[in-house]
């Protein structure tokens, strides 16, 4: 097996659902050892989320859990009990990074806040991924992916004017904060190389939306009164910028440069309407004639399939792309040729394909080496092997509901 970039790192994850697990997934997939701490009996929330094979709920068969937790070791532990906390602190003494996603108030109550943890392990990096961050008036507010996308500015950009704004599908907010958590943790690791000390990484999900995603245009709002716009299947800037139906689905038609649009008109056989004087200025077209233009273009699109149109566009260097369904994407030769989807066999879930590497590192490749852990699968290995508990003690801990 090839060497991996982060093989030297030991990470403890005490999080649930997507944000913290995605953060540690990115690191585990590049070789870090991740010990995932789950609540005894229940485990990670994503175990109850699905999708499940044949729609039959089962904590060891949830697709979301399986996808997010490969390459990790799994232990169970009730951090709300004093003994549970003692064990967790034991794990953290041996760790480089602790990734958690509980409210700042709860972590303080449990004595697991950064100020307490650094006393026993000053080199520890604590990455806290929460909805609103560690400070500020909303820091103990609750926020799910829907809420952070709303306050962070993403939702008002999606949906039809006059109807409710749409948060992005499948809890994207959590992936954003998870990935930012992984990047910022790397920063803290570099700082530690010179300072010798750990620190707290504070990731506020609402803020990831409000800064790197949607903070760049705020100037225009403040000084020019610009508002966020949502215009359904279109963006109103130049025409075309739209998702339009064709014979077997939808096409994404965006031509920012005039020559791209011109070449598309030619490819359509230079329809008569293109010489209509109303359709000369593409900004005017976007603001005033978009509905009419959509129907004219759709009349042509509807006789052609996505693949036909895409091929035609690629030949002519027109920037239009098919809106692939999930099934089409899963079968797309692009992903096949890049070996994107990987196969993994796992107890209780069977052999499945999984989404794979978001990037290819030439010397230290992304790897899926082992499947997601069963609930408490590595209790013995970790508690006895690493922390020195005896078999008898382990039984007692289990009977006491602590692990």
């Amino acid at each position, binding site marked *: 097996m090839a*060497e991996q970039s982060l093989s030297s790192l030991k990470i403890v994850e005490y999080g649930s659902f997507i944000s913290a697990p995605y953060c540690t997934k990115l690191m585990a997939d590049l070789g870090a050892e991740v010990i995932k701490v789950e609540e005894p009996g229940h485990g990670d929330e994503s175990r109850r989320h*699905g*999708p499940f*094979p044949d729609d039959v709920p089962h904590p060891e068969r949830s697709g979301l859990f399986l996808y997010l937790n490969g390459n990790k070791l799994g232990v169970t532990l009730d951090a709300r009990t004093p003994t549970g906390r003692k064990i967790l602190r034991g794990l953290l003494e041996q760790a480089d990074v602790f990734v958690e996603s509980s409210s700042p108030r709860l972590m303080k109550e449990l004595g697991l806040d950064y100020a307490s943890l650094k006393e026993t392990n000053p080199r520890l990096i604590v990455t806290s991924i929460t909805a609103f*961050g560690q400070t500020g008036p909303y820091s103990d*507010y609750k*926020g799910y992916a829907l*809420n952070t*996308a*709303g306050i962070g500015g993403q939702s*008002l*950009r*999606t949906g*039809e004017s006059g*109807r*409710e704004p*749409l*948060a*992005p*599908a*499948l809890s*994207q907010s959590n992936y954003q904060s998870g*990935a*930012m958590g992984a990047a910022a943790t*790397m*920063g803290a690791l*570099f*700082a530690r190389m010179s*300072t010798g000390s750990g*620190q707290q*990484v504070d990731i506020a999900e*609402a803020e990831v939306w*409000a800064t*790197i995603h949607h903070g*760049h245009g*705020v*100037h*225009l709002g403040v*000084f020019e009164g*610009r508002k966020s716009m949502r215009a*359904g299947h279109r*963006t109103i800037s130049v025409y075309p*910028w739209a*998702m339009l139906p064709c014979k077997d689905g*939808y*096409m994404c038609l965006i031509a*920012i440069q005039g020559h791209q649009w011109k070449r598309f008109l030619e490819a359509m056989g230079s329809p008569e309407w293109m010489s209509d004087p109303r359709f000369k200025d593409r900004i005017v077209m976007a603001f005033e004639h978009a509905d009419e233009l959509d129907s004219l273009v759709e009349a042509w699109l509807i006789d052609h399939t996505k693949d036909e149109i895409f091929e035609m566009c690629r030949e002519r*260097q027109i*920037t239009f*792309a098919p809106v692939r369904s*999930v099934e089409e*994407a899963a079968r797309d030769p692009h*992903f096949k040729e*890049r070996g994107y989807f990987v196969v993994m066999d796992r107890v209780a879930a069977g052999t499945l*394909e*999984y*989404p794979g590497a*978001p990037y290819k590192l*030439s010397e*230290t490749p992304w790897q899926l080496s082992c499947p997601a852990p069963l609930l408490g699968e590595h209790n013995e290995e970790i508690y006895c092997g690493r922390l020195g508990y005896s078999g008898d003690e382990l039984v007692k801990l289990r009977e006491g509901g602590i692990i």
Partner: protein
Amino acid sequence: MQGQGDKSNMVKYPLEGYRVVDFSWVWAGPLLGMILADMGAEVIKVETNKRLDSARLTPGRSTVGPETDFVFHSMNRNKLGITIDMSDPRGAALIKELVAISDVAVENFSPKGLRNLGLQYKVLSEVNPRLVMISLPAAGQQGPLSDIVTYAPSLGALCGYSSLIGYPGERVLGEQTPYLDVTSAIHGAFAVMAALYYRENSGKGQYIDMAQIDVGASVIGEAFMEYFMNGRVMGTEGNRNLTMAPHNNYPCLGEDRWVSIAVKSEEEWRSFCGAIGNPGWTQGAKFNDRFSRLRNQDELDRLVSAWTVERTNYEVMEILQGAGVAAAPCLDLTERFSDPHFESRDVHLQVDHPATGVDIIAGLPFKLSETPCEVRRPAPMLGEHNDYVLGELLSKTDEEIAQLIEDKVVY
């Protein structure tokens, strides 16, 4: 001079001492460079007047030339800027000299872009075997789509993501924002630092081939799992969630004002009912457990809307959060700017810029307790740091620099 990785001195910022050559433009690459620059790396943005970064000239934003685009300023703060025509062999030679004393290179041209200039990884890694380089084109360096030309929303279209965006069961609206550009930037910054971390132990640089549509597929893993497990193809689901109801954006007082409300556990549901005054409908069998609420969510949404529409979005947040229920307003540009929480956390920053006076730009997307990062300098003017890079870093004489300018190699 590769002080990079020299950790003998205490540093103020995490990536202090690392140098990044940033060839990238528009959104995805520059934002990757921004994260590295925010962390203290010396990021040198390579531009040329022959072909300006289009983010300097977005229609409707920069009416007076390439130095006043606030979005560009936000995405490129903390970077240095040089202007070099890489298509001139002498320009390409300067780039090689710079790469030789750098740690990281970032580029998001189409795959043939740097190859045509003779500046691809193979060449640059000979100049500097410790180099970590990332390319982040739409579809990677290899594969059947590698030659495609795209805009940000096309990425969402190609990876399956856009097919999920729309109201429940209705037509596809698709992702309209540069969502996947930003997502790629964050993933790319992580991958670069992971590779750099490895280099600190092994001494080996490497190449990262990141297809933006592969990143897009990675954040919708759930949909692929549904397909692989059950052969079922997810479609548009609006704000619906598999396990939560209420889970939507609800209308509030005012024009286009909305509040997001998400209720997960039974405890949260009871708190929600109490906070809105336990109206009779909350007691009925239609809503008294999660499965009933999910089944009857259209009716539930109407009833919740009737309560929210009489209040401001901030009032709804205060009332519900007071009861332990997740609620937050959907905020527009100016509302985010004046939100007290965002204000207390420096989510927006005011930075002096020589061409505009002052810009309001995005704050940092992360906070570090012991080595806090900050905006140290505004985005560079075109060629602002030519003298520093050519003179100090590459030891060119004033005469040599003058000649390079005259010959439009530095341009």
